[in-house]
């Protein structure tokens, strides 16, 4: 168990491409941190630098109390779960799980006990003597988890471990991984491109885009107070509504509708979550609904207001109809962004 510190950690490739711009953050002992972003944003590179599979071009990485920039992956006291599980196909499940222990000169009786314990925890008892190549996707995923937990490491690293599973299994494993991490109390860094995974699993989310950290915060902070228009549109399904607006020093207008009070002056981007727009016959916002998306528990109305697209989240009993409607906005639910920089105001 350990805390992790990154101080201006940076990755540049020999061809000059900067995959990760200098990044600094701390991960507390026992914390579950999720790195999320679109593909190519540098999140996997960041994880691989922490694992030691990728050199750190500049900056300092410490795990526990020691700087590990030049420490071999095997000596960093980490365990990693890979996207395609990376099991040793020629070994049995038992050997796969015990391999890391065997190489750390742990007596074989102890290895057997630990493997048995992990197999119990992950319901792998019936498969211990099968070859890894004979298992299903979900079973392989469990073996990969088992390989990580027997090591009892200071830090768990997960590289999109659920993306090869089908949707149902993914939801189940999501909860299991989170529960397991809670129970073991091991610090974890988890990489995913799935914002739902990020929201549901993380203690803190790190949103990355183009090699830059856009925001670090709790799921609630990232969702309700996105630091940029990128975070606003990446996190949440459906994403936050973003309107072109204008601020005159006291009020913010979208089209001719005054929406929010703010001292800023000039062009702004107004962000409002779909569930923060409430149908209201006396509301100031005139909307034309084009499509109703029925989701059972609730409905999404897609339409436009004065040339700008909008999505509204309404309760299942709301009598939605295609055509014009009016709505109001929940107070304090408006995020304002500088249109030029995309940063939150």
């Amino acid at each position: 168990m350990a805390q992790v510190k990154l101080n201006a950690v940076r990755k540049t490739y020999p061809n000059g491409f900067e995959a990760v711009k200098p990044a600094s953050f701390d991960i507390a002992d026992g914390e579950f941190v999720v790195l999320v972003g679109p593909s190519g944003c540098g999140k996997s590179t960041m994880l691989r630098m922490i694992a030691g599979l990728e050199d750190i071009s500049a900056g300092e990485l410490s795990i526990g109390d020691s700087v590990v920039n030049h420490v071999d992956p095997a000596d960093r006291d980490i365990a990693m779960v890979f996207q395609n599980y990376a099991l040793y196909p020629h070994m049995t499940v038992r050997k796969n799980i015990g391999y890391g222990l065997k190489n750390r000169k742990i007596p074989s009786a102890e290895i057997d006990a630990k493997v048995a314990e992990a197999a119990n925890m992950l319901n792998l008892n019936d498969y211990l003597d099968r070859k890894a190549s004979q298992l299903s996707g979900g079973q392989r995923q469990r073996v990969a988890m088992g390989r990580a937990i027997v090591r009892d490491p200071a830090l768990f690293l997960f590289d999109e471990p659920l993306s090869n599973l089908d949707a149902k299994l993914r939801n189940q494993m999501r909860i299991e991984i989170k529960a397991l991490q809670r129970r073991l109390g091991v610090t974890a860094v988890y990489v995913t491109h799935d914002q739902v995974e990020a929201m549901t699993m993380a203690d803190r989310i790190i949103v990355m885009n183009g090699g830059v950290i856009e925001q670090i915060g709790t799921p609630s902070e990232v969702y309700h107070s996105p630091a940029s228009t990128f975070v606003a549109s990446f996190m949440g399904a459906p994403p936050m509504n973003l309107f072109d607006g204008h601020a005159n020093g006291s009020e913010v207008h979208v089209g001719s509708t005054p929406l929010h009070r703010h001292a800023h002056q000039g062009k702004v981007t107004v962000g409002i979550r779909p569930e923060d727009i409430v149908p209201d016959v006396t509301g100031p916002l005139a909307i034309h609904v084009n499509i109703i998306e029925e989701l059972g528990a609730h409905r999404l109305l897609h339409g436009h207001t004065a040339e700008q697209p909008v999505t509204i989240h309404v309760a299942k009993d709301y009598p939605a109809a295609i055509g014009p409607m009016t709505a109001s906005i929940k107070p304090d639910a408006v995020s304002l962004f500088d249109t030029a920089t995309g940063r939150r105001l």
Partner: protein
Amino acid sequence: MKRAGFSDRWLPVLFLLPQLTIIVIFFYWPAAHAVRSSFFLQDPFGFGETFVGIKNYTMLLDSASYLRAAWFTVIFVTLVTFLSLAIALLLAVKADKVIRGAKTYRTLLMWVYAVAPPVAGVIGLVLFDQSWGPIKDFVAQFGWDFRLGVNYFDTAFTLVVMSVWKQLPVNFIFFLSGLQSIPRSVREAALIDNRSAAGRFWDVTFPLLAPTGFFLLIINITYALFDTFGIFDTTFKGEPGNNPMTLVYKVYLDGFRGNDLGGSSAQSVILMVLVLALTIFQFRMVERRIHYT
């Protein structure tokens, strides 16, 4: 796998016919002929033959030169196969780690592939020759009086070196592609599980290369037995004398230089049976221990 069916039972036979014709004419018919003539004593001038039963075989097994060639074949094939596989594996593992200029480096290592065995023999002659070979001059400084074609050991040494050298690129290409087909994440997982590079190689890389290795083992034994003929022939310059030779070269020598067609046929038949047994043994014993992904 999906099975496609033919509605007409003669159609598949028709499709197979060209291949079958070639196999029958160039393999089964000569093989049958060899078996037959191994029981006869041929007149050297082609004026007839006499049935001698198994006498050709019993004579072979009593012949000191045949047994000597048999022993040399065993040692030669073992050495060539082992050395060419081991060196190629080492080169492939090293080449796999090269990042800059990898293509050039790999191409350089594969070049020898284009050299035909007789040409390899000639290159061996040039390098090791008694009167003008640079390697002979080099080893002379260490007190090794190298005599190619005269000293039994020195000639065997040259033959092994040239045969190994000639076979390296093939093995190298296969091992390299085998290495590159091992998923990167599996190697990375090993990197986290095991700090020793040698340990990672023997525990993870080597077993995953085993299917490639098994295939190459068969290819290399066949090569060392049969395809080295050209190297032997050019090295001997037509004067085999008492030099070391494989059973395959001896078949040629006794049959075509010695005009003993019956004895030579008996040798081919023994060789055929040996190769058949070896192949069955390989597939039964070795393949069982290999994991195919």
